[in-house]
């Protein structure tokens, strides 16, 4: 494109665009000035005052928490059967196969009669998720043939130590840990 055509095109563009007039305020001083100083301030204050009766909107995290959507994919949970208390996970490693971040490690073992851990022939002797690598895609949940693993709603997993982010089976079976005390009702 030559320089000329460029300007020609730019020019025709400028022609077709509405030119916005700048609205200028009253000149400083005089009545206009006084109105600007108080009137506009009061108008602003009106908004402030009207919100004041709504009460504060700030969520006092971590004492208070934002609710999440039902399908939010937070920290994983391993589940047990409610009736028998056995672990649903049979250590099949399908979740590990599905995981795109390769952050699940399963080492299975055979159930001993009388000391059953899961309902199948095998159970997960080691089940670890490295949450510092997890991308919370939920593929593990989809892969699991027994609904043994689901993504929970817990998103508070920050830690000072990376090694603490490797969640073991016991941690995943337990309810999420309460990291910070929530404000009690009457506080």
């Amino acid at each position, binding site marked *: 494109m030559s320089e000329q055509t460029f300007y020609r095109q730019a020019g025709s563009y400028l022609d077709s665009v509405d030119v916005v007039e700048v609205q200028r305020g009253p000149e400083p001083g005089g009545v206009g000035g006084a109105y600007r100083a108080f009137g506009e301030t009061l108008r602003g204050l009106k908004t402030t005052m009207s919100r004041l009766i709504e009460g504060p909107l700030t969520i006092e995290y971590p004492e208070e928490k934002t609710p999440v959507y039902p399908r939010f994919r937070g920290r994983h949970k391993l589940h047990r059967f409610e009736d028998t208390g056995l672990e649903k996970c049979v250590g*099949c490693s399908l979740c*590990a196969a599905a995981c795109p971040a390769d952050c699940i490690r399963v*080492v*299975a073992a055979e159930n001993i009669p009388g000391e059953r851990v899961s309902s*199948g*022939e*095998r159970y997960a002797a080691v089940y670890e998720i490295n949450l510092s690598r997890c991308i919370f895609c939920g593929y593990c949940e989809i892969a699991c*043939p*027994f609904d043994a693993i689901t993504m929970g709603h817990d998103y508070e997993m920050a830690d000072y130590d990376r090694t603490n982010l490797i969640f073991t089976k016991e941690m995943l079976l337990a309810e999420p840990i309460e990291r910070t005390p929530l404000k009690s009702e009457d506080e």
Partner: protein
Amino acid sequence: MSEKREVTLTIDGREVTAVEGEMLHDAARKGDVEIPVFCYEPKLGAPVGACRMCLVEIEGIPKLQTSCSTPVRDGMVVHTRTDQVKKAQNAVVEFLLVNHPLDCPVCDKGGECPLQDITTGWGPGKSRVIDEKRHFEKPIELSPLVAIDRERCILCYRCVRFSQEVSEDAQLQLLERGDRTYVGTFDERPYVSPFHGNITDLCPVGALTNYTYRFRARPWDIEQAGSVCTLCPSQCNVSFTVRDEKVKRVIVRDNPGVDDGWICDRGRYGFEMFDAAERVTEPRLKGGSKTDYETAIARAAAGLGARDGKVAAIVGDASNEEGFLIQEIVRGALHSPHLDSRPAAGPRIDTILGLEQPEVQAKVTDIDEADVIFVLGTDPMQSSPILDLRIRKAIRRNGARLVVATERPTALDGGAEAIARYAPGQAAHFVGELTKAVGGTENVATPLAESLRDAGKIVVVWGERLGAAAAAKLLHFADALGTKSAGTDVDGPKTQDSLEISAHQHVGLLEVPDTANARGLREAGVLPDAGPGLAALAINGHGTEAIREALIDGSLDGLILVGVDPLRDFADTARWEEALNAASFVVAFSTFATATAGKADVLFPLETHAEKDGTVTHPDGRLQRVRPAAGRPGDIRPGWQTLANLSLALGHDTGVTSQPTAFKALTDAVPFYASITDAAIGGRGIRWQETESASSFPALAASAPSSAPDAGAASADTQRDSASGEAAPVAGALALGTYRDLWAGPITELNPPLKFLKPSQRLEVSPEDAARLDLDSGDTVRVTQGAKSLEATVAIRERVPAGVCFLAEGVAGANANGLLNGHQVSVQIEKLSEVPA
């Protein structure tokens, strides 16, 4: 094979060239057309057409045909993807799944399951079955090592065919009929066979699983790493399943030239010992105190260097490179000629050269094509299990005839056409007689000679245990036989000429040595009378037994032991104990903390075949590479590195700085390995006889003493063979023969899953002697030889000749080696207690 005609056929529009007689399925594979199969497995022999998964459409034949059992014909037009075929495939899969539990998540086969793959690839994708599936108790023990889940079985017959037609133990059967059919043994007894682990590789579903691997890992958790099993001279090709740097499973890595696609249970289940508590994982000093490599090497070098010229070495379990470096240390750095790689006095170098000549050397696959297989002085089942399967296959499928001549009854006796038993210690005499019988003299060996004469292609599978004198006569025997079968009448001593006339077109020798890499160590120069490449030496040193005596009389002072356990594996334990105590400085390399290792002043760890990097040589001359698969536990360093550093510390630079340089040093030193490269060895190994450097193999001297009938009868070599060395046997005494039991040793002691196989000492006697001595099977007896004795349980065996008894070597607590003294011995038997009624 090569004279088979080639045929051309069309499969799915592709032109494919196949060999006449080949099955359609294999031909299709050549054309990159995949036809699903379940029951077809060429290793198992003739196809049975049991599963119908491989149906294809052949033009001109109205019904679909099983491609696994239809041989190719010229001009055949085959379709594998027509609607008719698809419908059939869908139907077969649907039928198979009617009773299949589909419990993939808990099934150990999941992820590597042909049924999963074929169902997703060729199945209908959905099931119409709403009925109850069949149920069996599951999982149950088929054997202490293999679990069976009968619900998952698709009745493909593979395991049953293995048991019936490959290992020929005939224990597995399909019982019941129809949908109640299940795989089992008679009366639900455990399936016992030294090869039964192979059925877990064969089973195309998760019906047969290894207890040692159940649920240990999924295919995406593991890596497969190919190596070579060095637990016996068969040197089977294996693949290690490794998870988290540890071996979790051993499976076959088919090599038709070596193992025919099978491995024995020793190789398959003998991997947990790699992690045993008894494993030596760091250098140690006397008393077991742990140390680092630098200190250990400095100590070893100081101790050995101070005994310059008075150090000997005995090598057992080592790679070719390690063997080569040890002979460098002993000969080069310590100026001593004394080293050996054989448990007992072995044949002299001229005998070895004669027996190793490429023309007389049989390769393993020669057994497949042999007309007659002559098993002499070895029981392959105990010493080289995979050869046992190979010989059975030759008899069953190729109609080979079998002739057996051994001291002790062998596992192969049942299939033999002629059997001879010679008394323990009489091997040399027997081979001599046999040679005469082949030449036409009538004697005890005549019946055997009849079977061997004019037999066509003969493979002699002979054991190193024959002894030096017998080995010396063996070449003469082969020579007589070869010449005889070639139709020339020869009597009298052989000359170089007659050796060439026979050209051994007909006779091949295949050794079954005592240790896994016996041939490689020999060729690397770990012999008292030959250097690398079996080259003659200026000064010959002592062999194993002479080293022992020299240590006791003080003419030798220091000892290097590499991968040997004389206190367990060598004859005459007491004398060895004395020798080890007499040695003022012992450096040992050992995998496990054995009694022998406990005597070492400096103890270095050894790698196992899952960790080692190096080459080994198969008894038929095939160089194979052992490759590191798993991590080395503890502080273990590679063997070549320790040895090279030790040599350096002794002031002898071998120039070895890595495994490739070690290999290079070896191939430079051994002329007939010269053209072998790592690439040539590859995954399958290469026989040096088939390379151009084979011509550099040292020729036999024209008047080679080994081809004269009685040459080997030199003093020390024949100790084992001269019954004359002993006073006349006391009345009632039995001649003692010993054998190496497949399961004796660390294999059953350090592998928890194999503990149930740990042998206890059995005294095998003939029914005649048992009656005379009033013994019953199961009685406890004391077996006494001179001042030494052990306890054993009596086992009466029909096939043991009268006057002879057998004990196993290496059995913990009752080791027959303790009763031996290098001569033929006889033992007294005293009954201690009766078998409880």
